[in-house]
């Protein structure tokens, strides 16, 4: 059985007998790459698997991942409290999205063992200048960008350039919409603002249906998927925990209203195909008009079944690489109108050629400050 299939089996709480240490080593490698070690640790415990019955090697890595994830959760609570205090006076809406949102949700299974590299915020667009100013006053600054990238963010994007805290290193992505404006797919954000909830500790996050749809949109409009299995299991876990008549109704309604029904079809298709998640027949019927045609589906299956499996570049074959390439072209095509896409491709292509010729650090502006960012090199 290929490693990716073994991982899906283990994810469902079945530990195949006679796994060799070499197989376990590969499994841990893939899961670490997918940022899923801590999630698996939590899930196996939920499913009643005694972690101590696993080989010591596996226990070690699950333990390490668990400690890191717990620490991150603490950190996010700390940052969220601070952000709420700083920004509440300046914006009518302040939502924590994706990873941070999962961590802050009351006991959401999707928030356990979930790790991420930045905190995503959604604010109303009118308040962006004030929000940005207040964040800068409190140590969050954008990193150096060239003019092209600055323009890309300001004109076409759904977010401002990432902000990094000077001393804590926390990275914030501040959004005013869920999808780049240039794509022509950006929804009326008020549709989503109507689907929010407040957690026990006072943070605003999406309700499960909107959370699911945002995850879906993010995954299926992207040109690059690094942690496909993690993102897919986000969807699977949200369904497992929150599915109810109300959840499905809200989800389908919101997807149709915001013109993301097609993406919702795909999300449900692959949680079913890869994770075996059951989708109610009534939901499938409602979405039937939005399902891509047969040929399109074959093409999409070729891409998404490959990139959403628990994979790792070392184990990928030519078809996997082709899938990644097709995903990239598809993602760009979905996000940008053709003239702008051509311009963008030309500019990025020029940089890539220069990189190939001159080395990948040609564009770096200055020598790094080695002493600051590296543990153990002081």
């Amino acid at each position, binding site marked *: 059985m290929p490693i990716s299939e073994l991982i899906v089996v283990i994810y469902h709480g079945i530990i195949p007998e006679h796994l*060799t*240490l*070499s197989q*376990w*080593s590969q499994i*841990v*490698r893939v899961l*670490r*790459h997918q940022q899923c070690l801590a999630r698996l640790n939590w899930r196996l415990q939920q499913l009643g698997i005694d972690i101590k019955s696993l080989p010591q*090697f596996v226990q*070690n*890595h699950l*333990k*390490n991942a668990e*400690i*890191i994830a*717990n*620490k991150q959760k*603490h950190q996010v609570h700390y940052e969220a409290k601070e952000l709420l205090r700083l920004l509440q006076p300046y914006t009518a809406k302040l939502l924590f999205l994706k990873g941070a949102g999962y961590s802050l949700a009351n006991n959401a299974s999707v928030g356990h063992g979930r790790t991420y590299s930045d905190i995503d915020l959604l604010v109303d667009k009118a308040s962006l200048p004030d929000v940005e100013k207040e964040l800068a006053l409190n140590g969050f600054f954008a990193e150096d960008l060239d003019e092209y990238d600055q323009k890309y963010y300001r004109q076409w994007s759904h977010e401002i350039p990432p902000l990094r805290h000077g001393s804590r290193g926390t990275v914030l992505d501040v959004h005013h919409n869920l999808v780049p404006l240039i794509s022509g797919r950006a929804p009326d954000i008020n549709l989503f603002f109507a689907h929010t909830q407040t957690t026990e500790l006072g943070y605003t996050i999406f309700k499960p249906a909107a959370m699911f749809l945002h995850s879906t949109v993010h995954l299926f409009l992207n040109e690059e998927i690094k942690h496909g299995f993690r993102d897919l299991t986000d969807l699977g876990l949200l369904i497992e925990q929150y599915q109810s008549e109300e959840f499905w109704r809200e989800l389908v309604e919101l997807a149709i209203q915001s013109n993301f029904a097609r993406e919702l079809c795909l999300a449900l298709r692959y949680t079913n195909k890869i994770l075996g998640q059951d989708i109610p027949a009534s939901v499938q019927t409602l979405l039937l008009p939005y399902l891509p045609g047969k040929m399109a589906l074959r093409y999409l299956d070729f891409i998404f079944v490959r990139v959403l499996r628990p994979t*790792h*570049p*070392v184990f990928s074959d030519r078809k996997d690489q082709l899938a990644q390439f097709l995903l990239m072209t598809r993602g760009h095509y979905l996000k940008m109108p053709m003239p702008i896409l051509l311009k963008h491709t030309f500019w990025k292509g020029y940089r890539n050629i220069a*990189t*190939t*010729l*001159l*080395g*990948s*650090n*040609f564009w*770096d502006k200055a*020598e*790094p400050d*080695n*002493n600051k960012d*590296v*543990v*153990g*090199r*002081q």
Partner: protein
Amino acid sequence: MTFSQQFLSIPPFCFELSTDVPLVSKNIRNIYPQSVINSSDCPDYFFAVQYGNGLRRIIRPQARFFSDQHEPFKPISLDCSFALLEWGMNWCIATQEMRFVIVHAAVLEKDGKAILFPAPPGSGKSTLTAWLAFHGWRLLSDEMALLLPGSQTVVPFVRPICLKNNSITLAKSWFPDARFSTIARNTHKGDVVHLSPPAHSWENNRVPAQVVAIVFPKYQQEQPLTVTQLNQAQAFSALAENAFNFSLGGQAGFETIVKLVEKSQCYEACYNDVAELEEFLTQDVLPYANI
């Protein structure tokens, strides 16, 4: 471009390393004993050291370090490639291995009793480490002490000793027969050479030891040996400053450091002669320590 692949069993971890840089393979064969370079099919971490791409392969060639798919550092000039691997290993363990409380410290053991030497760079820690390792002490760690949470047990992580600048000449004159790596010049630490510890340390690289004392060494050229006993609060804060993953470990990390300080003798030692300091450790510290 041919990549050689090898396994490094450096207890308590196993690494897979692939590299196309001959300098890296050459230094590994020189520094690590055969017992470490072996075949294993269960690596914990996967490293690669490879040439920088593009024209950088030919003009002022560079080496790059990868921990699986991740590149934590900027490329560095090719002569530093082996040092880059050693730092990469440190980085990987310090950021991943949370089941240990990791302190930036050397650990050496004699008569079954281990002493922890936490110190910032420039304190002469590595010179002292090298001296002790070649004078009857067993090296457990040069830079990273791996403590089991809630105990005084140090798990050995035996790797070469990282010598800088003047201490390179000194060590080469002290131990002319020892195995030294090639020189990595002009790194952020200055010139760097790695020194392979004696066979005794390698052979016992799976044998843990109990910490009985914590000594903060401070090399001062003009000053003869001056030892100050530290109270527990002083020792705690000095030790916490040198803990890599103190905050990550949370409660467990905190309690481990507290317990360690409570159960250990704690000193600050200003010295200009390693032999004199060694005499103090052997005669005045070890005999009074109970395990």
